[in-house]
């Protein structure tokens, strides 16, 4: 009896894995195999050895671009948090319907393609755009250039990535039991102290989830910084594309991709030890 029960349990636990099979095969074929080939290429082209890695890790250009990539990703994450946290809070306090309305407005930007959103910023921030016009109307004789600066690329990336932050924080805020806040108040925690000791720690998982998502996505950004950013501030993805498209340096580009991937995995690993990756999904 006990035996057949455990057999049943075993069969039960097998089912979910079977359901995952198509996805596993798909990922293995279309993601893992190419990825392994990228890894192989990074140590075989143009000749076997670690030459590509040596080049990337010691070359001043590559170091600069990697530092800039991580710096930009940090900055964008921070800005998204700054913008997203209050907005998520607002959503968690208003009525369900109003919250849905805000959510709709936020997700609406997902309906437009990356490229269109990037060009929209070019129109808005351009020399003949409304922002510069407003500045001149306000009496600023020589408005500073907005386009093709770190400002414009950061702004556009924050715009594109903020929804990830907002939705992550909102999900967590929504689940906070209001009675926790009330009991904190009854214990004498108000304003700043209530926020610092009760609300902020309760929302920390949302902040962490949103930040990791935004940070990791931002690391791979390509089109937006190329079209909107300053020529001096290159991102790694753009440089990788350039190595391959312009120089046919498949090995070097692969090595850079692998390094970017490894660093990203390390960050995710640290996050996992601290918070648990499973939290990213719920």
């Amino acid at each position: 009896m006990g035996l057949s029960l455990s057999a049943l349990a075993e069969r039960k636990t097998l089912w979910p894995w079977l359901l995952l099979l198509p996805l596993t095969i798909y990922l293995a074929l279309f993601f893992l195999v190419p990825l392994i080939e990228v890894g192989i290429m990074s140590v075989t082209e143009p000749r076997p050895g670690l030459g590509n890695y040596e080049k990337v890790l010691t070359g001043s250009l590559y170091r600069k671009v990697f530092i800039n990539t991580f710096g930009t990703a940090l900055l964008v994450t921070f800005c998204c948090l700054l913008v997203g946290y209050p907005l998520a809070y607002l959503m968690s306090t208003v009525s369900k319907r109003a919250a849905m309305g805000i959510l709709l407005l936020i997700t609406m930007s997902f309906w437009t393609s990356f490229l269109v959103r990037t060009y929209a910023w070019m129109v808005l921030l351009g020399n003949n755009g409304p922002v510069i016009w407003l500045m001149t109307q306000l009496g600023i004789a020589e408005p500073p250039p907005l386009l093709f600066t770190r400002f414009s690329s950061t702004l556009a990336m924050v715009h594109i990535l903020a929804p990830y932050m907002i939705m992550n924080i909102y999900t967590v805020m929504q689940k906070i039991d209001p009675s926790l806040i009330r009991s904190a108040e009854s214990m004498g925690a108000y304003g700043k102290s209530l926020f610092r000791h009760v609300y902020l720690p309760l929302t920390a998982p949302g902040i962490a989830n949103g930040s990791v998502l935004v940070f990791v996505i931002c690391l791979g950004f390509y089109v937006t910084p190329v079209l909107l950013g300053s020529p001096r501030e290159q991102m790694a993805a753009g440089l990788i594309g350039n190595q391959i498209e312009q120089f046919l340096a498949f090995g070097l580009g692969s090595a850079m991709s692998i390094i970017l991937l490894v660093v990203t995995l390390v960050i995710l690993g640290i996050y996992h030890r601290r918070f648990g990756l499973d939290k990213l999904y719920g």
Partner: protein
Amino acid sequence: MTIKKTHNALIRPNRRLFLQGTAALAGASALAAPSIGRAQSKELYINSWGGPWLEAATENLFNPFTEATGITVNTVSPVSFAKLAAQVRTGVYEFDVTTLGGGDIVAANNAGLLEPIASPYPGGLFQNGVGSHAFATMMAWRTDKGWEETPQSWADFWDVERFPGGRSLQRYPARVLPLALLADGVAMEDLYPLDIDRAFAKLDEIKEHVRVWWTGGAQSTQLLRDGEVDMIGIWHGRYFEAADAGAPVDFTWNQAELDSAYWVVAKETPNMEAAKMFVEFATSAEPLAGFVSQANYGALNPAADEFIPDAAKPRMPTAPGNVETTFTQDMLNWGGDPQEVAMRFDEWLAS
């Protein structure tokens, strides 16, 4: 309509597929058309530049070719030098025929990416490519800046005192370095081989004024048309696009840099016969004349001249009256390894 819908035939899980993710993100989206089963000779895949190029090529090259031979032409975007290399290495072909500029064709031929081809007209062969048309990188500017003088030369492009404002150049050192030397006073006939160090020293002077190093033709048109920069080194066809849109702009043929585009056949492509037929067709007098007349290029096959209407000539960089003040890019006597210089240029850009 014989031209099928443009598609990106990324299909098999090959390694380039992964690498091209970035390019795919920039350009296209659709995954379609398996390469398996496209080895028949009744179809040809051509790498397309899109925009006005595609319009002119469809009307004057692709459709007439299909009518003459019964071979259907499909176009594949975007134009990618890396893809040409990738498909030769993997044996998975997305396109059979593409066009390359003078800078890339030398590198491509050295890398063994090009199928040897016979010249369809005398003097038409260069590095296993067949000369199709010339295009210019020239100086253009906004006329609404209130400058007292009109810029004449690349030296004026560098002169931010007399012509204050933002600048833009192509992010392509093979074309930009000669311009820097001209600005530094080197005569057009003494340019090659280039003095690379001197060119970089001159570029240092303009660096902070170059707000954008453009990477795409459409982008350069937009920069000039919308006045994001006040002076730009731009392909002539892209300039006329901005001018035709009514932007307050002007240009000069003086010291314009002529570059040539060559039709090439991808090494060992399964559609070799059709591909070679097409290259011969596209560089023959009448189709080429129609193509360059519509797209404002300069025909490289002299036989095309008699079919080119006079009305089309003022916009052609190679027409009499324009060509005298231009110079031609010399990739064989360039003055260094273009790839190495390009790496140095990238480093210079980020520093």
